């Protein structure tokens, strides 16, 4: 290993962190402006052109804010918790491919930090580590509301992790690999979201719950828990939690795009045209960026539209609906691919979307019936 190899790694890691950090700053602006639009307001538009300098103003404000440490907290863990929240949200991006590769001065530079052959397992292991920051923040604050936020978040994230794993399984089966790069390349002919639309939808719901976004933001439900796990945090430490939340949004959008929406690849019907990433490597990051923007818009839209779901219903939804549904979807995907392989007719792959949509409709009908029965019972 020569030193240029190390240099390449260091530069790539640095650039990735930079992308996520500036992405976080501008995502806050994006969210505030988009939310404002949906609520018929204008939003921050004073600092710079169309409010483009607002994130910098916010950052300066947060840095100069008074750092308050309450006297009753468990100090070490209280300091550790924000760091434990931010670090997983940064390192999880290491295996996500941002594009193909290009050559500079006779060297092939690939547009990802690491091609791990167990990439998806890496994602799930980091996702399971990410719970600690929130749980420990809640516990170390030594405060009833913060504690409840921490316990809620741990229960919620453990529950939804099972469905997350099963949705990963769907992508692994279809991509026939655990490496994210192989999965992206397997989507050259067809996006997985087209073959398994319900799987993509289930994955979106599960990642919303995993990153504690609305309507699943129970750990910080304001009307019940003041601010949940970060009630006692202020200044930069609060900013770190804030940062982690928005970085997680970006990262899960990247993961969703990679697993189900073709990653850095173009639309499947553009694969041999001028717009393909096989012709121009620089199209890869642009496509991924556009997909991430679209998915982030979806998340903001959901936040603006839906009220928070009640906690017992959140747990019931995770265990009694999403888990069986994703199990059924994994089974359908596996059998569809096996059928297409054994009978060697690629058209049989369309068994998968048909059956998954049937399962989806059955699920919706069952939920509907259950809710109606409950409302009759109350009258």
């Amino acid at each position, binding site marked *: 290993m020569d030193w240029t190899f190390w240099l390449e790694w260091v530069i790539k890691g640095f650039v990735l962190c930079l992308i996520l950090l500036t992405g976080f700053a501008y995502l806050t602006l994006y969210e505030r402006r988009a939310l404002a639009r949906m609520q018929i307001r204008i939003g921050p538009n004073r600092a710079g052109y169309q409010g483009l300098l607002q994130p910098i103003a916010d950052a300066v404000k947060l840095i100069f804010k008074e750092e308050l440490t309450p006297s009753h907290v*468990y100090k070490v*863990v209280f300091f550790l918790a924000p760091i434990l929240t931010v670090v997983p949200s940064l390192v999880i991006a290491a295996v996500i491919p941002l594009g193909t590769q290009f050559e500079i001065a006779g060297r092939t530079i690939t547009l990802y930090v690491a091609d*791990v*052959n*167990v990439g998806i*397992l*890496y994602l*799930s*292991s980091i*996702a*399971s*580590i990410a*719970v*600690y920051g929130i*749980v*420990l923040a*809640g*516990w170390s604050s030594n405060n009833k509301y913060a*504690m409840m936020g*921490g*316990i809620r978040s*741990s*229960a919620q*994230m*453990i529950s939804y*992790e099972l469905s997350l794993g099963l949705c990963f399984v769907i992508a692994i089966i279809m991509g026939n*690999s*655990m*490496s994210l790069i*192989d999965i992206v390349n397997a989507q050259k002919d067809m996006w997985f979201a087209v073959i398994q639309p319900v799987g993509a939808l289930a994955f979106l719901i599960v990642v919303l719950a995993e990153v504690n976004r609305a309507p699943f933001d129970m750990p910080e439900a304001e009307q019940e828990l003041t601010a949940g796990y970060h009630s006692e945090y202020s200044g930069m430490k609060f900013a770190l939690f804030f940062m982690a939340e928005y970085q997680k949004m970006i990262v899960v959008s990247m993961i969703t795009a990679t697993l189900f929406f073709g990653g850095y690849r173009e639309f499947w019907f553009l694969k041999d045209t001028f717009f393909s990433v096989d012709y121009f490597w620089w199209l890869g990051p642009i496509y991924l960026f556009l997909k991430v923007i679209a998915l982030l818009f979806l998340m903001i839209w959901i936040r603006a539209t839906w009220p928070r779901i009640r906690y017992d219903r959140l747990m019931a939804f995770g265990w009694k609906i999403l888990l069986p549904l994703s199990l059924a979807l994994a089974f359908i995907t596996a059998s569809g691919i096996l059928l297409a392989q054994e009978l060697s007719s690629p058209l049989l792959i369309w068994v998968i979307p048909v059956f998954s949509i049937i399962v989806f409709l059955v699920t919706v009908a069952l939920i509907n019936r259950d809710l109606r029965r409950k409302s009759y019972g109350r009258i």
Partner: protein
Amino acid sequence: MNSEMIVFLVLALVSIASALGMVFSRNAVYSALFLVLNFVTVAIFYLLLGAPFIAMSQITVYAGAIMVLFLFVIMLLGAESLPPSATLPWQKPLAYVLTSALAVEALYLVFTRARSSELVTSPDASLNSMESLREMALQLFSQYLLPFEITSILLLVAMVGVIVLVRQEKAGQK
């Protein structure tokens, strides 16, 4: 002394220190956190040995799922700190005897069995690929299918058992 050796020594130090910290910590939450650190260092040992699959599973299952449940229970029961003195008088001497027996046994095995020629070294790079994962899966689902299925049935029984226990308690309350 190559770089791998340095990494190994540092990690060994961290893992032993975290294990000791786990045992001697008076606060259950700190104990649990030390154990998490220990699991993570063990996972990095697996990575050094060229077994990424086991390493990632170690982090997901032990450091992620199981220890979060531990923390959850500790916090829910409010059992963070131990009482200052031991409750059972005969426990301490017995524990000393048993742990020293275990330590002697382990040391005996280390000094008789381990020779430098038989030390575990990193397998060659061909194992460290997707093919090895495929091979492992094939072995698991063909040769070891029966143990695999029995394990899953055991887990299912445990899950059903939990549900049954909880239901009975509720019925008794009514």
